[in-house]
């Protein structure tokens, strides 16, 4: 299972990754405008044309003032809520790690957007032929043994691609080696059942635009108890209702016989 480690402390904000994503996936540029938001960030949010976004956050880090960067993108969960919720399995978790999107099967029901714990899936709200969009971890590159386009573009190894276990161990090693530099948590290691995109940061993760109050149990497991018993219900109800029908039919038969007898007596 492949994964991506994002060490935000090594990021220098050059945004090569944001353009690399557009270049490889052929995504058009957005019409943007300077907004007095966080530093140089543009566009404001992920969209159907922007699958990864660098956030600029001004924060007080320890005794000095710092500029910290976050990288918003699909987290490629181990047990993705989008794949669990999609009625036609248009969202599919590949064994190699990426969660890919089969455009040909999508109904546009947007259940995946509701389910996504990281709120990263986007929709073509103003198109007559809408699709959803999200980062696919460059599945075509990954399946042919390459690394995603954004990872390749990163000059400072803030983005590293490799086996998930190795990267998790590497992340913990970095935390142990300079405890004062990192928040002692690998974001994505356990959230919603663990994800294939791991983050390290020097500031609390909420500051980088991530949600850090997510359950550890994968969201698929929250619906499973409701979906597992379906076949038992079908079988159970078939049996029970059949029995009821049988009892009712015998009661009716006796009633009819009694009724016929009454009619005969009256004649």
């Amino acid at each position, binding site marked *: 299972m492949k994964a991506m480690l994002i060490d935000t402390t090594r990021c220098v904000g*050059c*945004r*090569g990754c*944001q*353009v*690399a994503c557009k*270049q*490889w*996936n*052929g*995504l058009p540029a957005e019409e943007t405008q300077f907004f007095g938001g966080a530093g140089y960030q543009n566009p404001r949010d992920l969209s*159907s*044309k922007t699958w990864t976004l660098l956030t600029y956050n001004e924060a007080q880090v320890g005794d000095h003032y710092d500029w910290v960067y976050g990288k918003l993108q699909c987290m490629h969960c181990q047990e993705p809520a989008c794949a669990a919720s999609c009625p036609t*399995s248009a969202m*599919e*978790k*590949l*064994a*190699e790690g990426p969660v*890919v*999107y*089969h*455009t*040909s*099967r999508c109904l546009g029901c947007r259940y995946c957007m509701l389910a996504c714990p990281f709120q990263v899936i986007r929709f*073509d709200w103003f198109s007559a032929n809408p*699709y959803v*969009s999200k980062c*696919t971890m460059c*599945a*075509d*590159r990954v*399946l*042919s043994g390459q690394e995603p*386009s954004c990872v*390749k*573009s*990163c*000059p400072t190894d803030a983005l590293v691609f490799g086996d998930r276990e190795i990267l998790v161990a590497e992340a913990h090693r970095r935390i142990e080696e300079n405890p004062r530099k990192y928040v002692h948590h690998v974001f994505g290691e356990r959230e919603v059942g663990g994800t294939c995109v791991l983050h390290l940061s020097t500031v609390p993760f909420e500051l980088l635009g991530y949600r850090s109050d997510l359950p550890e149990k994968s969201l698929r497991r929250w619906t499973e108890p409701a979906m597992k018993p379906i076949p038992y219900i079908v079988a159970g109800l078939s049996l029970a209702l059949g029995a009821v029908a049988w009892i009712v039919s015998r009661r009716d038969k006796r009633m009819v016989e009694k009724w016929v007898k009454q009619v005969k007596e009256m004649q």
Partner: protein
Amino acid sequence: MSNLSRREFMTLSGATTGGALLASLALTTESAASPRLALKTDGTTETSTICPYCGVGCGLIVSVRDGKVVNIEGDPDHPVNEGSLCSKGMALFQIAVNDRRLQKVRYRAPGSDQWQEKPWEWALPEIANRVKATRDATFKARDGDKTVNRTEGIAGLGGAALDNEECYLWSKLARALGIVYLEHQARI
């Protein structure tokens, strides 16, 4: 806008539906090793290039199919950038493929408020005549008792984005024309 090109996925999903329905009764959700997907760089010819932006000199690989640029990304073998690129380097594709690129010689007549498109065959002699006229008019052979042989009426700017060979020819031609006002971006 399809995420993975529709052709690949139609073939894929077609295959799965055909076999799936009744034949295999037990379906697993976790697919075994996934089939390799087509890459947009499959079947392209690759050439190495150097980034035209800053002075770090990063290496890139240009993938071309049927005479058109299909993909430009970092050159993993280049020792300076090892395949990585900044936002400008990664955007080189939109320099090679950009409808705002000049594709015709343009001429603006004195006082006019718009361009006219012209062929090279027209432009070059016109430019040569103007250069000759201005050089001959403003050429200073002597300054007091000293020979100076300089053209004071023509100035030359630029070169930092040109190749070395192009800079050399411009340096050679400009000095042959006697141009002394010869500058470029190194000084601003």
